[in-house]
């Protein structure tokens, strides 16, 4: 089931039914479909991943999103006393409303701030540690073009601009207004105490257009990205500290016909 097909019967699925024995439906039809699709994709990704620690978190997230999609119930929405079932309705009425998604991640890297900043600032390095970034092309001193592949194999591309650049301290950027999911972010570098290197903090905000589609994509992109960004930082750390990223891709297993992840 693709999100688009499912969006057509949003009202049917989204409407709670009095005899529904399971948890209350508070996730809208479109988002349920998307939740299910992204959830299954994450599960598949997790199952194909050979690294236990990350894969486990991924599979949890995947399982949760699938469950949420299948049951139409989101524990988080319940806790926040909100829900996209009503939301999508409002969204359709009040296109143009904004609904930010923000994520943050942090890591301590045992290298000096100048070095970590320098590596990050050479944007062409991004595909070496950002899982879904396929390529980065630097256009000029502040502008660059990014190409990403989503877990489901979709190619996305957008342009971004560095809006603040303080060597050894901070890089802030935002995507061009034309991007499907408009976002802005900053990465901060500061010396860690006791000569432990650099504390790197990454903040990204998605500020999607008010359409249900844009918001849902951003929300899902956002929740998956929270995990993804942490993994990206982990790989950055591995590269800078250990000189390579940990991999088990291509190692022997049985049967050999099952392609290694």
């Amino acid at each position: 089931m693709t999100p688009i097909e499912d969006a057509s019967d949003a009202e049917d699925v989204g409407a709670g039914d009095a005899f529904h024995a399971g948890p209350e439906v508070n996730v809208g039809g479109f988002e349920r479909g998307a939740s299910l699709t992204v959830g299954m994709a994450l599960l598949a990704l997790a199952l194909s991943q050979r690294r236990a620690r990350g894969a486990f978190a991924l599979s949890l997230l995947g399982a949760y999103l699938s469950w949420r999609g299948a049951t139409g119930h989101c524990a988080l929405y319940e806790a926040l006393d909100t829900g996209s079932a009503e939301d999508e309705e409002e969204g359709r009425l009040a296109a143009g409303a904004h609904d930010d998604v923000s994520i943050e991640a942090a890591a301590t890297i045992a290298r000096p701030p100048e070095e970590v900043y320098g590596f990050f600032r050479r944007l062409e390095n991004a595909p070496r540690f950002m899982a879904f970034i396929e390529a980065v092309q630097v256009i000029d001193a502040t502008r660059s073009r990014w190409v990403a592949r989503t877990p489901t194999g979709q190619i996305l591309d957008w342009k971004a601009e560095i809006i603040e650049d303080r060597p050894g301290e901070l890089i802030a950027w935002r995507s061009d207004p034309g991007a499907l999911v408009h976002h802005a972010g900053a990465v901060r570098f500061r010396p860690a105490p006791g000569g432990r290197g650099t504390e790197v903090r990454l903040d990204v905000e998605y500020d999607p257009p008010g359409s249900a589609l844009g918001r849902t994509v951003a929300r899902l992109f956002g929740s998956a990205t929270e995990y993804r960004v942490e993994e990206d930082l982990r790989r950055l750390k591995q590269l800078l500290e250990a000189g390579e990223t940990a991999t088990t891709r291509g190692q022997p297993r049985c049967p050999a016909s099952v392609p290694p992840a």
Partner: protein
Amino acid sequence: MKANCWFGKHDVRLCEVPEPQLLSPRDAIVRVTLTSICGSDLHLYDGHVPSMQEGDVLGHEFMGEVVSVGSAVENLRPGDRVVVPFAISCGRCFYCRRELWSLCDNSNPGYSHMLGGYAGGQAEMVRVPFADAGPLKIPAGLRDEQVLFLSDVLPTGYMAAENCQIQQGDVVAVWGCGPVGQFAIRSARLLRAERVIAIDREPARLSMAAAAGADVIDFSAEHVTERLTEMTGGRGPDACIDCVGLEAYGRSPDALYDRARTTLMLATDRPTALRQAVKACRKGGVVSIAGVYGGFVDKLPLGAAFAKGLTFKMGQTHVQRYLRPLLKRIEDGTIDPTFVITHRVPLEFAPEAFDMFKHKRDGCVKIVLTP
């Protein structure tokens, strides 16, 4: 090449798999000359590690000959004979630099999903990540069997004893007389424990412990904590080492309770031995945990531990920290780890060997496999 692969609970099979390749600059490929089955493999065998996947190559205790090295490995050359630590560690992060190797930030620490997901060494060949930081070159003149256990159970038993900070006159109790327990017993003696008390129920393992000068308690016949109180003049052991881990046996009410809880998936681990250790330990003593725990334990007497001011030490072994000092003791004859080997079989028989090791049949303590 041949490799022993995991397919599910109590299902391991010898498979034909592709030879490993160098995947990263710091890798080495090692042709395995000797490997073995560890108690930790039994946790995988018994299905306690959910991240295992069908077809995973098992084994994390192995040694062999370097076949090739990645572009960043300068300390090893093809032909070198090496023992490979089970902990996969980068050697450069905060933890590695503090010799806390098994806590490395930059690897998925461990072969065959013990905690990572690297294909293991119960195979003809194996890929060794961070080969410039881990493997120990073995001088000529030492047989494989003398040094193989440097990869895991020898340093594990040693670290468990070292963690007890043994003082003159100390009595150390050791739960579990498997290979880890055997090395813990001997290490405790080496570190000048006055007396070691070993606890298990397997006759062959208890007599191996007795041969090292330990007093023994058969937990299937005696009440462990009462016996310990009695044997230590009411004080309790100064240090207690748990070399059993999450799959402890027992028939006491608490053990049956654990079995029911884990069967119903309400708990993951059965800490029978650990509970006894906490109960028995003297005030201000040390509880050192080498046995693996994976999830949640129930009814751990933390109140008693708190009241007695116990110190807990635990974790995966920082193998690399002990390689050279223990190699030296093997070379000078203070330690001969070969005593623990009861069975030598070709790799082809790995599935049968797992079954035998699990059920401790035929006096089995440690099995080595030759590819």
